[in-house]
């Protein structure tokens, strides 16, 4: 038998091509099946809950991609049946980190009070990603009290900061003020106030700045004003200050804020110079 090198090369090339084509075909089929499954799940949103629930649970129990299962979790969050909420909590408690966090967020979207309450236990036993997902879920549900509870029960500084930051995002100024009564105005609390923003917060930030005993607290108050965009306050502090270094820092802050009030400072300086 004569072995022809060109034939071997051609055969190998053809095999490689067919393997690649087969791979593409399998991938196309998977994509196509996934697209159809997602469309079918979306169709279930308007279906009677008792008919949609078993189909969604079937998808979660079967071998499916994370994208399909995540869509199933969303549909589950829209089903107003106790079994649906129980199932969401089950997935949230599962060992699958991706789906677990998604289920937690879906509990937030669903807004079921009982399922939301179940997230408190999960927060205590979860890793950082899961804790973040729980805070996000409470934010989505607008459950300020739950986040406040997490802040007051925080076992370490990171947990406290995470909850305080979320209270700021949620605009829960009264809860931040309440926390300050026990812990004082920590840097994270001050920044969270800046995130919450508002006239009352601006007044509080000015008060904190003026009464600050450390540079860190003063800096945090300025950061708070930066976040809330309170350039009038920074200008006011600039005018009040007699310290050259402090004036420079405040001017720098106004520059960072891209404040139009900088012109006022420049005009005053020019008038003073003239």
């Amino acid at each position, binding site marked *: 038998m004569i072995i022809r090198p060109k034939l071997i090369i051609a055969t190998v090339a053809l095999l490689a091509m067919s393997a690649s084509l087969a791979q593409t075909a399998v991938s196309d089929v*998977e*994509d*196509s*099946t*996934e*697209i*159809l*499954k997602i*469309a*079918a*799940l*979306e*169709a*279930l949103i*308007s*279906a*009677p809950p008792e*008919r949609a629930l078993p*189909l969604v649970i*079937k*998808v979660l129990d*079967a*071998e*499916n*991609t994370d994208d*399909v299962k995540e869509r199933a979790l969303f549909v589950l969050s829209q089903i107003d049946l106790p079994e649906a909420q129980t199932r969401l909590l089950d997935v949230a408690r599962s060992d699958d980190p991706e789906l677990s966090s998604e289920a937690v967020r879906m509990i937030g979207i669903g807004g079921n009070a009982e399922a939301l309450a179940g997230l408190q236990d999960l927060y205590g036993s979860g890793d950082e990603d899961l804790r973040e997902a729980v805070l996000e879920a409470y934010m989505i549900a607008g459950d300020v009290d739950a986040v406040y509870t997490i802040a007051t029960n925080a076992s370490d500084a990171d947990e406290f900061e995470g909850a305080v930051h979320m209270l700021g995002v949620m605009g829960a100024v009264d809860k931040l003020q309440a926390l300050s009564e026990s812990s004082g105005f920590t840097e994270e609390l001050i920044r969270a106030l800046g995130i919450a923003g508002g006239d009352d917060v601006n007044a509080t930030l000015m008060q904190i700045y003026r009464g600050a005993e450390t540079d860190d607290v003063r800096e945090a108050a300025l950061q708070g004003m930066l976040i809330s965009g309170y350039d009038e306050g920074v200008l006011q502090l600039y005018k009040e200050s007699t310290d050259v270094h402090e004036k420079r820092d405040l001017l720098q802050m106004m520059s960072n804020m891209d404040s139009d009030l900088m012109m006022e400072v420049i005009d005053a300086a020019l008038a003073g110079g003239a």
Partner: protein
Amino acid sequence: MKTAIRLLLIALFVAACIGSESLGANFSVPSDDGWYTWQVDASDGGELQVYALIESGSPTKFRVRGSSLCYSNFRFNVDANDLGVIEADESIAWLQEFIRPAGDLSSDAIIAISLHAGDLPFEIIDRILSART
């Protein structure tokens, strides 16, 4: 004679098979271009108005409107050729042909099917969801 009977039985068997495949598939939207519409019983107990746009002889869009349902566009309103009242399962059988290949039309078809009355929409959705990936 025996051969003739055997052939007749085979023909009847094949016809039965074909008949069962196309059960409920009598309804078909004309292939002339334009919007067509027909009414079926809806999943919410009301009436569902189904619309199909035919372009170059094939459907390119499906829309549905119902008493409590409106999919895709609340202001959807077109001059369509009215095909009258159709059995839900017949309408589903026609729409089902456009589930594959996966794409925009298949999503429209699945949504439209899901809003029809009866068990068939759930059987179809179940089959799609049970497909192996």
